[in-house]
């Protein structure tokens, strides 16, 4: 029995070893490689299975329109399963294949890759996650959040609550329900500062990982504390649990604002469908829905090939975020090619290209962000959508909250 199974084993091992030298997609003439790390498996697969196809779709759209200045964009998508050592290995592999910029996936990965990005002069984007201090372009020259960080989200959340509650927060009660890990703890300093400035009463409720058990916190909020508004900073499976719990305990969801990772159609469907989440306010850093020119272009591209639009578009929140992540890289590439007069750009050129991004809104899908060498966040713009009927309806236009306060904090972190 042992001898029979050993020979095919050896052949398989030899074949596998041989494919080592088959190599990946090296960037050739008139091709630009953007290294993408995107998780379709692992704890963030709910986001990744929608986000990653969107990145591919946008790149295919650009290539079908002739590329940028004749250059074809190649995205070599690799999955790191939300672990750091594979992320490092994939970064090295993309670097060997000649990438000019990279899409990072995951907060610990962004932290771990930062020293390497600085050493190799390759810019990396981390929209909607990573450390808020990375907005400081002088301290983190090669990390680009390019979307409202958790500090900007907290400030914007308080501003929205203030506007909704009639312009004055004195004496009002605000509950902050958060996932108990560094990302969840990050907005706390901003909230505490705003508490002193605006005079409201802040109570924090921590949900331990993995965030599927929060009945005690929800009961505490709805029965005991009874705040005027709840800010919910949850991700993964926690948002849908929160929606269900709030609905069951009778706390009106029109007094709940979910931050950017608690805000997708997938969470609402997982909570039991649109009827459960009526009135829920969601914070977005990219537009929601398919009423944008670029989405229509992608649908047209699929129609030309005779295929129906991808089913990932149904979760438009994550799909549009994937479009954003790809679009900012392409826009940076456009800027970089202007700098190099059409010659293939290096990572340093891409960094300058990112810092030249302004007024790039893709028909309203993206906020009017302005990236500079000092501000890698682009302004911290958010938009609030509310659940009405069976879709999300725009509740505000693009706005920023307490920008000077956030910038002060960003520039003061040592």
């Amino acid at each position, binding site marked *: 029995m*042992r001898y029979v*199974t050993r020979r095919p*084993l050896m052949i398989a091992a030899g*074949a*596998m*070893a041989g*494919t*080592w030298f*088959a190599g*990946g997609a090296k960037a050739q003439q008139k091709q630009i490689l953007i290294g993408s790390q995107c*998780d*379709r*498996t692992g704890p963030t697969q709910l986001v990744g*299975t929608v986000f*990653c*196809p969107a990145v*591919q779709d946008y790149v295919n759209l650009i290539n079908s329109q002739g590329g940028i200045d004749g250059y074809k964009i190649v995205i070599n*998508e*690799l*999955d790191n*399963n939300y*672990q*750091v*050592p*594979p992320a*490092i*290995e994939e970064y*090295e*592999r993309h*670097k*060997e294949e000649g990438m000019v910029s990279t899409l990072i996936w995951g*907060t*610990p990965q962004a*932290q*771990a890759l*930062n*020293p*390497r990005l600085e*050493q190799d002069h390759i810019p990396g984007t981390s929209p909607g996650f990573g*450390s808020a*201090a990375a907005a400081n372009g002088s301290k983190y020259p090669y990390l680009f959040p390019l979307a409202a960080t958790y500090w900007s989200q907290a400030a914007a959340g308080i501003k929205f609550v203030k506007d909704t509650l009639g312009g004055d927060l004195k004496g009002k009660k605000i509950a902050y329900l958060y996932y*108990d*890990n*560094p990302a969840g*703890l*990050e907005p*706390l*300093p901003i909230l505490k500062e705003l508490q002193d400035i605006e005079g409201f009463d802040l109570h924090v409720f921590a949900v*331990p990982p993995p965030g599927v058990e929060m009945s005690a916190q929800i009961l505490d909020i709805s029965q005991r504390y009874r705040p005027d508004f709840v800010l919910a900073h949850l991700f993964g499976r926690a948002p849908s649990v929160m929606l269900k719990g709030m609905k069951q305990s009778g706390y009106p969801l029109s007094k709940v604002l979910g931050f950017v990772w608690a805000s997708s159609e997938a969470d609402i469907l997982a909570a039991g469908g649109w009827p459960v989440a009526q009135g829920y306010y969601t914070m977005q850093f990219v537009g929601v829905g398919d009423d944008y020119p670029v989405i229509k272009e992608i649908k047209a591209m699929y129609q030309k090939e005779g295929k129906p639009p991808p089913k990932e578009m149904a979760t438009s929140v994550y799909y549009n975020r994937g479009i954003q992540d790809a679009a900012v890289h392409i826009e940076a590439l456009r800027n970089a090619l202007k700098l190099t007069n059409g010659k293939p750009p290096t990572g340093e050129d891409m960094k300058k290209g990112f810092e030249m991004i302004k007024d790039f809104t893709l028909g309203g899908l993206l906020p009017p962000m302005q990236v500079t060498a000092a501000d890698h966040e682009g302004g911290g713009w958010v938009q609030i959508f509310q659940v009405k009927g069976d879709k999300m309806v725009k509740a505000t236009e693009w706005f920023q909250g307490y920008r000077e306060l956030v910038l002060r904090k960003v520039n003061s972190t040592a």
Partner: protein
Amino acid sequence: MFYRESGVFKTSYAADMALLPLPNTRWAVAGLLVLFVAVVPLVSDEYSLSILNLILIAVVGAIGLNILVGYTDQVSIGDGAFMSVGAYTAANLIVRVHAPFWIAVPAGGLMAALIGLLVGTPSLRIKGLYLAISTLAAQLIIEWVINHVTWVSGGTQASIQVPPPSVFGVVLRSPWQMYLFLLAFVVLAIVGTQNLIRSRIGRAFIAIRDRDVAAEIIGIDIFRYKLLAFAISSFYAGVTGVLYSYYLGIANYEQFQLDVSINFLAMVIIGGLGSTLGPIFGAIFVTLLPIMTRRALEAVGGLFFAASDLSAVIPSLRLMIFGGLIIFFLVVEPEGLNRLWRNIRNYFRTWPFSY
């Protein structure tokens, strides 16, 4: 015929007790050292060196866990937490008092060993699966403490930037310098473990693994030796954590969560419990195989799937194949890769007289 074990006469106690008594073995080890120290850094490109560095760090951790799980049979799924303890201790020392690596690494290990002693205390009363659950509790508690005690974690982000180590005034920035640095620790770990197992402590560990009631009856203080096993294994884990921080440039507990602990347990089990070569094979297997599976899928995947579906399918297929390979290897050889290697080695040891 290839490996002459007879005709070696030792004339001193030192020669008799040597770690490598046979000249054949000595030549083989010398050749391997030359290969790994001189040849590999010269011929490898940066990408292969980065993978080798990850494997080397994993080897140190796996060897340490093997002392606990393989030689003393105390199941532990808290290894990741000890790595983060070591990482944060060293990172704090480096950032606050500019400790050099030869203070930071042992300090990280010792702190992890102290915590390991605490975590190992239930082992007096409980065994097997129950001990595993209590080490799981330790993993989660240590994570929570690091998350909430900002004195330890350096802020709410729980990340501390660690500058690269400097050895004799040379700052290690390039991959091959880091490779040699890590290789030194791996050699220390291997030699240390070999000597530990041959010593009185090692024999006590093996006695506890084989039949701990009998060991207690013949006079081995099993509580003391179980605690020592936890401490030594946690020391290795702490050192692994420090090495990860040096390699990645950052100390962050989110890198050392439950999945990492289970990964290391998998390394030890697949490699083979209770030997020094086993965890080395296991570490290479668990670190390298996902990468090779992905390469193989990229090379042949085009035959089975359309190119546009390939990137959607590869991540999930890779996980499935990796899991399938683990199951396959454990079914073919339940005692791990080390046993497969022993079978091959024994065949050649007595060749051509296999009888």
